[in-house]
Structures are given as C-alpha cells and as structure tokens.
C-alpha cells in the first residue's frame, strides 16, 4: 500500500508521479483524486500514462477540475467521475464516486517466492508498500541480504551504528542497502532511529531485519532534529552499555564499501589521542577535482559530520549534559562546532570521502544547493584501501609530517592568478605550496575567495589545520598557508608576497550563510 501526493500544479511533480506509477506492481488498485488544482503542470507523459491506465478524464483534466478515479494497474478502470470547473475563478462541482472493487485472493495477488525467513520479510514488506521496484518483483526479486567480505581484525565489530532517520523511506532504503554491503558491517549493531511514528521507514527497517526505534518528535524545525539526535545518541549508549564509541550516520548518505575498513584502521587514534574530537568519513573540500588519494588522511579543525564516530566519554561527560534544550532553534552540528564544545580539538578525515550525500529533499536542502555543493563530491569506490601512515595523524607526529611536506613542496609563481588552472604546472604527483594573506586567526577573506573560485566549499571555513589547507589540483598535492596567522608561515620564502584576493563589492544584499544538512 502507498499514499503519495504529487503537486502537479507545480513543475516536475508529474515526472515524479510517472516514476512512481511505473514502479507500482501490476494488479494493484489505484485510487486517484485531485486536491485544489492538478492540471497546470500535468504534461503529456503523465497524461499518456493516465490514458494507458484507462482513464478518460485524466488526460483531459482542466484548470480546477475535480476528478476521482479507481482503477487497476494494468487492468480495467473500476470507476471514474469528473466535473469541469465552469470558470477560471471557481472549482468543479464535488464528485462522489462509488464503485465495487473485486478483490483477488491472496494466492493470485502474491508472488510465489521460496519460503525462507528473508522472503517472509519480503512478503510482509511488499504487501504494505509500493514504489520500491524490483524488491517486490515476482520473477526476479532484488536480494535483501548482502554478504560483504568479512573484515580481518575488525576493530569496529562491536561499535554500535546509529542511523538517524526522518520520513524519507526511499532514501533510507538506498542508504541501508549501501550500509549493509560495506565490508565488515555488523547488522546487529545497527539501530535506525526514526523521528516520528512513520510506518514506511519502519517497514524498510523491518525488510532488512534491522532494529528500528521511533521517537516522539519534540519541538520544531532544527530544534526537532537536534532533540532527535540527542535521544538517539543517548539510546545508543543505553542499549550498548559496553561500547566506547558510536558511529553516527544519516539516511541520505551512500556508504563506501570500505567505510568500516577505514574506521577499523583509524579508530585507535580516537582512543589514544585526546586532542581528537571525532573521526569523520567526509572531506568538506573533497570534490572530484580536489581529492585524489584514498589512502591519505588529514587533521582538520572542523567537525564535518556526514558519517562520523563519537567517543562515548565525550558525549556522556561533555555534550549530553548541556545539549541544547528543545526551545533553542539551533542546528546540532553547528552547536557541536562551536569553540565551547570543540575546545580546540580536531577531527580526522580522509582525502577521498567514504560517504556520499545524495539527499536532495530535506529541512536544509534543495535541488540547487545539492547541485552546487554535493553532487560533484568525490566518493571512494575502491574496496580494502590500506590507509597510509595512520600514526602520523597523532598530534605531534602530524606536525612533523606537515613540516616535511612543506620543506619538499615547490613554491608556485605567486604573480599568477591562483584561480586559473595554469597556476599549477601540468605535472602529476608533485607537491606545491601557495601562501595567501591571513592577517589573524579568524581572517578568512582570501581563503573564502579562493574556495569560491575553485568551486569548493565556501559557505564557511572548513578543512583548515592551523591556517593550512590541503587539497589536490590537477592530481598534484596543493598546500595553502595563511600568512602570517599560520605557524607554518615561517616556511614562506622572504621574496614571496602572500596572495590577496579581494571579495567583490557587496551588491544587492549578500546571500545569507546557508546551513549544511
């Protein structure tokens, strides 16, 4: 069963409706009706589909008409009523449709899959929901159990995984598929927390045989999300009292096949180094043109989220007692990034992200935002990557590594425009360094302009480590040092003038800072 609303008064909704109707299993009873106005952006493809369902009035739907339709997917129309609106400013008369729907027996309606526990789950799922394509196909059902390779010496075998979910069951479905296909996953450690008593996400969770917990929503907007996170994290540590860490994921992420392998190799850092705040799978600056090396890790002064590991002691002792209360309309992740919470600690991130953010619809998301900042994010698809030199990510060892890199780096020609591709020579595998102006610790004027022209994250400052940014350009490692604020400014040759990029003069109202998901 499924219930969908397609606002075909607005553009592109009819395409979504066509997609959905195409995924409905044949034989299902379809009941359609119009609320307010449904014809304005009901285009030809959609009309043709309605015609193929046997509808007469659907393809001919007019402005503010009323319409009710009962039919069978692939079968006969069972009833239809239509009333035209007499004038532009009024609606059609109400229609009342009464019809008899002959039901088919369970044997006819259901598929005859083999009687296994998995197929029993499949049957329960398919008898309730629609729109998941080949999961419910009679002849060739998509597998719902995955046997990824086991991970030898899996250090995160007993780390609970909290999936924070809302009401986007199709996203959750996609996410769980990728999560359960990751090497080294422990399904019994996964708990999906749903913010509200929504049935369909719970059905998806049950399909995969996972644990699902529903949370009574508290407060509104971003405060609701932050209360949901708090309840989910507290519950995770309650259900797994022996765990020292928890992995936090959201429903709109694809999970890399080596996600757990990445964590297994790096988690000891979170254990041993108190100057670390988290380990995250997401590199804010890791776009297709700026990330290269899946074996490389960085330390950064931000908390990226989007697939990360939380230390239990940090949560229980510091964050949970002062978590924002329900009336504070704050983003939980912005709150976590504040200096009062982060207290100068850093996160470990990979150069190539181990999660991909695919969500287009959400509280803080829209199509444009996704297109601009998330679509071209680089995502690792190579299994079993061996991370290089993991212990050099510890506090002192990292400084040694940075100094080594800066000593070896070739200084670029600072008279050229850093935004141009020609700023770097046409080489591969080299290391280059550029110096930009950074008057004080919080002066990010030049960096922000550089980030903007390089088409990486520029909405706030991410990815820096003591005034140093690391990325790749044209497959060369590119280091950016902020002078004189960064302690690495000492590496600047005296002859070089740090680059200064002027922000464009403010025109008709600068855009406000958008929030990350």
């Amino acid at each position, binding site marked *: 069963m499924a219930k969908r609303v397609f606002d075909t008064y607005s553009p592109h909704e009819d395409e979504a409706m066509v997609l959905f109707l195409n995924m409905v299993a044949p034989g299902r009873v379809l009941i359609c009706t119009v609320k307010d106005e449904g014809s304005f952006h009901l285009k030809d493809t959609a009309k043709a589909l309605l015609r193929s369902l046997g509808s007469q009035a659907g393809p001919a739907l007019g402005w503010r008409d009323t319409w009710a339709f009962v039919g069978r997917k692939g079968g006969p129309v069972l009833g239809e009523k239509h009333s035209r609106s007499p004038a532009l400013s009024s609606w059609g008369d109400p229609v009342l449709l009464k019809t008899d729907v002959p039901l088919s027996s369970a044997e006819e309606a259901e598929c005859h899959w083999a009687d296994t526990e998995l197929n029993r789950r499949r049957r329960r799922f398919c008898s309730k929901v629609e729109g998941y394509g080949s999961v419910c196909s009679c002849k060739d059902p998509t597998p719902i159990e995955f046997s990824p390779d086991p991970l030898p010496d899996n250090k995160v075998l007993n780390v609970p995984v909290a999936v924070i979910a809302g009401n986007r069951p199709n996203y959750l479905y996609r996410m769980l598929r990728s999560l359960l296909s990751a090497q080294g996953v422990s399904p019994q450690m996964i708990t999906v927390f749903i913010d509200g008593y929504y049935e369909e996400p719970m059905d998806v969770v049950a399909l995969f045989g996972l644990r699902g917990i529903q949370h009574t929503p508290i407060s509104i907007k971003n405060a609701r999300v932050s209360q949901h996170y708090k*309840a989910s994290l*507290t519950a995770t540590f309650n259900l797994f*009292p022996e765990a020292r860490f928890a992995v936090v994921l959201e429903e709109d992420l694809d999970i890399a096949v080596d996600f757990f392998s990445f964590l297994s190799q790096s988690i000891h850092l979170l254990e041993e180094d108190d100057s670390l705040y988290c380990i995250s799978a997401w590199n804010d600056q890791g776009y297709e043109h700026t990330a290269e090396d899946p074996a490389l890790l960085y330390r950064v002064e931000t908390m990226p989220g989007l697939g990360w590991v939380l230390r239990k002691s940090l949560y229980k002792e510091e964050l949970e007692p002062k978590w924002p209360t329900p009336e504070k309309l704050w983003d939980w992740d912005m709150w976590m990034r504040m200096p009062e919470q982060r207290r100068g600690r850093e996160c470990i991130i990979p150069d190539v992200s181990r999660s991909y953010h695919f969500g287009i619809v959400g509280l803080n998301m829209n199509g444009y935002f996704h297109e601009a900042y998330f679509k071209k994010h680089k995502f690792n698809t190579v299994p079993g990557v061996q991370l290089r030199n993991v212990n050099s990510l510890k506090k002192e060892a990292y400084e040694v590594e940075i100094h080594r890199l800066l000593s070896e780096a070739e200084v670029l020609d600072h008279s050229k425009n850093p935004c141009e591709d020609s700023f770097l020579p046409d080489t591969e595998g080299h290391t280059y360094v550029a110096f930009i102006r950074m008057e004080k610790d919080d002066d990010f004027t030049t960096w922000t302009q550089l980030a903007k022209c390089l088409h990486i994250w520029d909405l706030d400052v991410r990815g820096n480590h003591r005034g140093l940014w690391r990325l790749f350009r044209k497959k060369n490692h590119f280091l950016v040092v902020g002078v004189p604020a960064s302690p690495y400014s000492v590496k600047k040759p005296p002859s070089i003038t740090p680059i200064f990029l002027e922000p464009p003069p403010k025109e008709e109202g600068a855009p406000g800072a958008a929030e990350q998901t």
Partner: protein
Amino acid sequence: MSRINKNVILALLTLTSSAFLLFQLYYYKHYLSAKNGAGLSKSKGSQNGFDSTQWRAVKKFIMLTSNQNVPVFLIDPLILELINKDFEQVKNTSHGSTSECKFFCVPRDFTAFALWYHLWKNEEGWFRIAENMGFQCLKIESKDPRLDGIDSLSGTEIPLHYICRLANHAIHLVVFHERNGNYLWHGHLRLKGHMDRRFVPFRKLQFGRYPGAFDRPELQQITVDGLEVFIPKDPVHFLEEIPHSRFIECRYKEARAFFQQYLDDNTVEAMTFRKNAKELLQLAAKTLKKLGVRFWLSSGTCLGWYRQCNIIPYSKDVDLGIFIQDYKSDIISAFQDVGLPLKHKFGKVEDSLELSFQGKDDIKLDIFFFYEETDHMWNGGTQAKTGKKFKYLFPKFTLCWTEFVDMKIHVPCETVEYIEANYGKSWKIPVKTWDWKRSPPNVRPNGIWPISEWDEVIQLY
C-alpha cells in the same frame, strides 16, 4: 394430594440435579488440576536414572542451544546449590564417566537458564526450531526499559522470558540484558491476557516475580550428569544475589512531567555540581562495595532519584544510608584512603551514628546509619553547637536495586513511604531551603548528649 406430591417430587428432582451439576463442576476443576499437578510430579516417583523427564528436557535444551549458538548458562538455584556442595567432585568428573544422575534428575518443575541477550546473533529462526524439536514455547516480551529514560522512544519489544515445555518438565529461559552500570537485568514475567495460565505452574518459578539485577558473572564450563553446561564461576556469589536481586525502574514518565512543570537547571554551576556529585557517588559506591558494606540512596539524593531521575542541582551533598548492623570500623580509613577525609562524626555506634566526608568542590558525603526497632526504623542527627539529639522516623523498608546516573545502586523498595516520611506529602514541589533540624516531618527531638560524652559523640575536623 397427588398435586402436592407432584410439586414436591419436581422440587426434589431439581434440587438433586443441581446438586449433581455443582458437584460435577467442582470435581472436574479439581480433577484437572490434580491431573496437571500429578502429571508434573510424576517424576517424583521415577528413579535417579538418566531416563527422567527433567534430565531429558535439559539435554534436549542444551542440544538446541549449542546447535543454534544461543548463549545460555545455568542459573537454577536448586541445581547450583547441589553443584556447589559437590563442587570438587563435579570439577573432577570428565565427560561421560558419570554413573548416576545426581543433579538434573532431582524432582522439580523447572530448570532455569539465563540467556545473554547481546551475545545472541540469530534470534529469528530459534523459536521454530525449538518447536520442531518438540518443545512448546511461550515467549514473554515487553518494552525495552532502556529506552524509557529518553523522551519517548518506542521500539520493538524485547524478549524477557521464554518458557519451553517438553513432556512434564519446563525450561525457564530468563533473558538477561546489559545495562549502564555494568550489570545484567531481567524483566518481570507478566502473562498477557490471551496466554494460558495453566501452561506451567507459574507460581513455582524462581525468577520473574520482579525484575532483577545481577552483577555480570564470569562463566565456567563444567560437565554435570554427562551434559556440558556453563555456570557462574562463583556460584556462591550468584546464589547470594538471587534473594536480593529485586529491581525497580526509575519513574521516567513522572520525571518528564516534573521537568515540564519545573524547568531543569542547565546552568554551568548545576552541571558542575551534578558531575561532581556523580563522581563522588561512584567513588563512595566503589569503596563501600570493596568493604562489603550495603548502602542505599537517602534523603535528598533519594528524592532526586524518585522525583526526577537525576541529582537535584541545588542539593548540597550526597546522602547515603547504611544499616547500623552493617557498620565496619574501617569505613573511615577506607574513605580517607581514596581521598575523602572525615569532616565530622556524630553519635556512636550504639546511638545516632552519622559520618560526613569531604569531597572536592565543597560537596559532602553524608552517611546516615539506620537503627531498627520492632515496628519502625530511625536514624539520628546531632546539633554540634548545642549537643541536641534528633531522631528521624521511617516505616520499615527493604532494599531494591535501581539504575541512577549510570550506576546500579540500592534504594528503599517502599520508596514513596520513605520519601513522604522525610519530606511530607508535598515532596513533588521543589524546596530550595531545607532546614534539617525543622523541615522534615519525621523529625523528633531526642534529648541531648551529656557533656561528658561530647568529645566522643561530636567530632569535627
């Protein structure tokens, strides 16, 4: 004449048939229960051989659990006692060389096992396989109490008990869940409406009358009557825990209602106090546990648990209660050794003993010793300046386990009576100024210490 006769005969017939019906009903009920009772105690008459129904049921159960990788260990008090008595003999017995069935054949209705839930990987198919093996199983499940403490979370129910019947014996599988505070918890065995109350003699179950809490036991594997089972490494300790294992949940729903009405204090001072009080409580608990001294949450700390499931931020100290018969003279030095020096000592072991230790950041740890009378309990108080004595009266109480600030800790089972004695019926209303000499409704003046004793009964540091 004949008319009267007819009526009389009719009345007589009706009477006798009703009497007969009633008799049938009564006897039928009696007959059934006798049959069940007789059935289950049929084993009483059987020989101590390996053909007894109990031994066979246990053997089948062990086969089932090892095949299906269900992590169980034996917790049956009757069997554990017997094993404990003959421990040396059991340890030295190798697999297969038993001549006589000495433990599992003992006549009884149930054999209790514990299931370590978080180690159980393959829950789904188990039930079906158990039934295929001939067991008739009953599953008792309920909401997960570990989710109760947080806003409102509801997940799928968790299994609490399984009762699997085979022929005339039943295995009681108690499901243990791990909780914060490093303990194992099992739930209350409550039959839902549709369940058959005659399935097994539920009243004879050793576990499940209340929810229970146990220390996580280390296990050892032994062979008993030819069967390999896991039992607690220290069976004596486990057996001692059983009669004192009753657990009560914190009243999360009421706590949430309390915070709706009286907003929680989220200032830095409050948070710091809570953090320090929690650390002090954990340190005290560890120290007392090492000494083997039982204690419970008292006064303001108990009120905090009962009313809001948390430490009251404006309370100035942590209050504990100890029965005077549990007093040990090395309590003072033990606390000193962990960095909690004695701040004051009032009274003496024979009368109104009270100890106070200094924690960090000006928090005190107050220990009140409770004295038992025929029909009530009391603890004493002393006013240092005047030597006046006070008595605080409480109705008698027993101790239950609960979970408080990530710890397993004791509170009085009869909590509301305890709280009301100390704070009166208006305990729901927060009061920030509390005068221990006058505010409690259960305080009574109790005379005055003679000056000659002051050196002993009033010691300030």
